[in-house]
């Protein structure tokens, strides 16, 4: 599973100097995180970026080819049909808490299994799936740091996470089924930045709701470090499951204070009903099921990624936290 030092790999060298760039399909490219990753790979002379997203990608660089199609449609298959795709980065999961469960399931789980099917059918040699460290689930019994072997229990208390857990399972099944394909599953901690994901949205609230008497340690990572981790995962020879951690661990309250937000401490027995009502009335965009993430610890051990992928977050803790407020 180990890849060795990427810089000494002859394949990598020939790719940087040679004329052929590796063609990388990125799903979910039109999202904020997708654009960060696309820009990073676009600047890298080793890669040629192909977008796959049903949303338009208006301000895309000229030489990025974008296919505005649904993952589940026949046209998505056509992207792979030519057989010249060198890698897939799948980050096109939908988290919109306002969509129906059926729609989310069909998009996330149905879409992912279709994609993996194309990769198998048209010999894509590298598949990178961006999962999340949240799949382990915040639980009071959790050890301080979960390794990649820990069971994925997020759906136990948090049915809305079922899709993400299932995507992760789909990818690990694919890892064993398609042994000729290098499958990499990345499970990053909470991604902060301009992205519109749950943790960043939560930290942009003012006041930030917290549970009275709870202040768990959390791990965060800068969105640009995610692009870096994905690039590491594209290294030929790399396969496996990796937790991706940022620059360190801090109590949630420290993050909130660093951002200069006010906090609203709510006793936990009334927090859920209160915010469920606010969510239904459209007063809050924060799904209540995620309250467990601000109550219990869900932290991971990123040693394997550091040793085997050579990945280490570049942004400091302060930069990572501040990234939420970047214009």
């Amino acid at each position, binding site marked *: 599973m180990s890849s060795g030092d990427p810089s000494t790999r002859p394949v990598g060298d020939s790719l940087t100097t040679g004329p052929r760039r590796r063609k990388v399909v990125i799903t979910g490219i039109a999202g904020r995180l997708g654009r960060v990753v696309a820009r990073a790979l676009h600047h890298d002379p080793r890669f040629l970026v192909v977008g796959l997203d049903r949303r338009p990608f208006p301000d895309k660089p000229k030489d990025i080819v974008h296919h505005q199609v649904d993952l589940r449609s026949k046209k998505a298959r056509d992207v792979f049909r030519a057989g010249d795709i060198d890698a897939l980065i799948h980050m096109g999961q939908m988290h919109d808490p306002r969509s129906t469960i059926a729609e989310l399931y069909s998009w996330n789980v149905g879409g992912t299994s279709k994609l993996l099917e194309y990769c198998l059918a048209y010999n894509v040699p590298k598949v990178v799936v961006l999962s999340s460290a949240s799949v382990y689930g915040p639980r009071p019994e*959790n*050890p*301080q740091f979960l390794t990649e072997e820990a069971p994925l229990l997020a759906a136990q208390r948090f049915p809305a996470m079922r899709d993400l857990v299932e995507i992760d399972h789909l990818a690990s099944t694919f890892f064993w089924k398609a042994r000729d394909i290098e499958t990499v599953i990345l499970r990053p901690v909470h991604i902060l930045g301009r992205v519109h994901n749950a943790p960043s949205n939560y930290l942009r609230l003012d006041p930030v709701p917290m549970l*009275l*008497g709870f*202040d768990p340690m959390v791990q965060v990572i800068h969105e640009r470090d995610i692009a870096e981790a994905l690039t590491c995962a594209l290294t030929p020879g790399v396969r496996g499951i990796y937790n991706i951690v940022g620059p360190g661990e*801090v109590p949630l309250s420290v993050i909130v204070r660093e951002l200069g937000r006010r906090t609203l401490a709510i006793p936990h027995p009334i927090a859920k009903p209160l915010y469920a009502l606010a969510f239904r009335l459209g007063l809050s965009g924060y799904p209540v099921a995620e309250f467990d993430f601000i109550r219990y610890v869900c932290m991971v051990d990123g040693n394997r990624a550091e040793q085997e992928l050579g990945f280490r977050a570049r942004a400091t*803790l302060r930069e990572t936290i501040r990234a939420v407020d970047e214009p």
Partner: protein
Amino acid sequence: MGVTDWLRRRLDHAVDDRLGDDVGARTRALVFRGNEYGFDAYGLGRDHLKVAALLAGWVYRHYFRCHAHGIEHIPAAGRVLFVANHSGQLPYDGLVIGSACFLEPPQPRLVRSMVEHFVPTIPFASYLLPRWGQITGTPENCRRLLDEDEAILVFPEGVRGISKPFSRRYQLQPFGLGFMRLALATNTPIVPVAVIGAEEQAPAVNVRSLARLFGSPSFPVVPYPPFVPLVPLPVKYRLYFGEAMEFKGDADDDDEVLDEKVRAVKHRIESMIHIGLRERKHVFW
């Protein structure tokens, strides 16, 4: 925001004023692997530790007037497992051992103890205990901390020990084997500790019917108000730190093989308890 900040600053000053030279210097001398915000990976905060050291130091020196023997057996650095007898309904024995390791030796040592799995579900305790260096008791946490050369306190008797009634004081309950497996797997020396005094801090009887009613492992009742053990009696604590014991072997051995090693630790603690009880003239002074 304004009020809480003001309160926090006032508290900080009050703590710094009362900390005194000794405890203050010890807090600074503690080996601490914190990040730029002053927290380590397990949630220990240096500023929070100051408050804890102040409170625990007062309880240790003035309330329990603890006397610790065998300080020289507390290693200044490196991984170590402190194994002690557990008693007294309230876990003050953990606090006292932790304070002793922090206040007595030339180089202060932070001892982490393992808290129960339900603690993270209790408001305030959920984050205050980690800020003071306590962690949830899982084997993974223990192994990781020992691999990082930290000091851990374990009570192999667990709930059986702490909740036993007054009539069975100073009788060691069966030891769990988990600590020995950890010590063998991580190659950690074991320092046995005998605690004298904790047994008398809350002389209780166990009311079984009430325990069943509340679904708790025991329901202790003490013969003075408020009848449940909340505040310990001001007994005098005596601690005996024994010589470090090294064990070699396979961590995955059968229970019988491990049991022998565990018994050796148990015997050492037992004999230190006997010495302590013989030397003791009075429970309260």
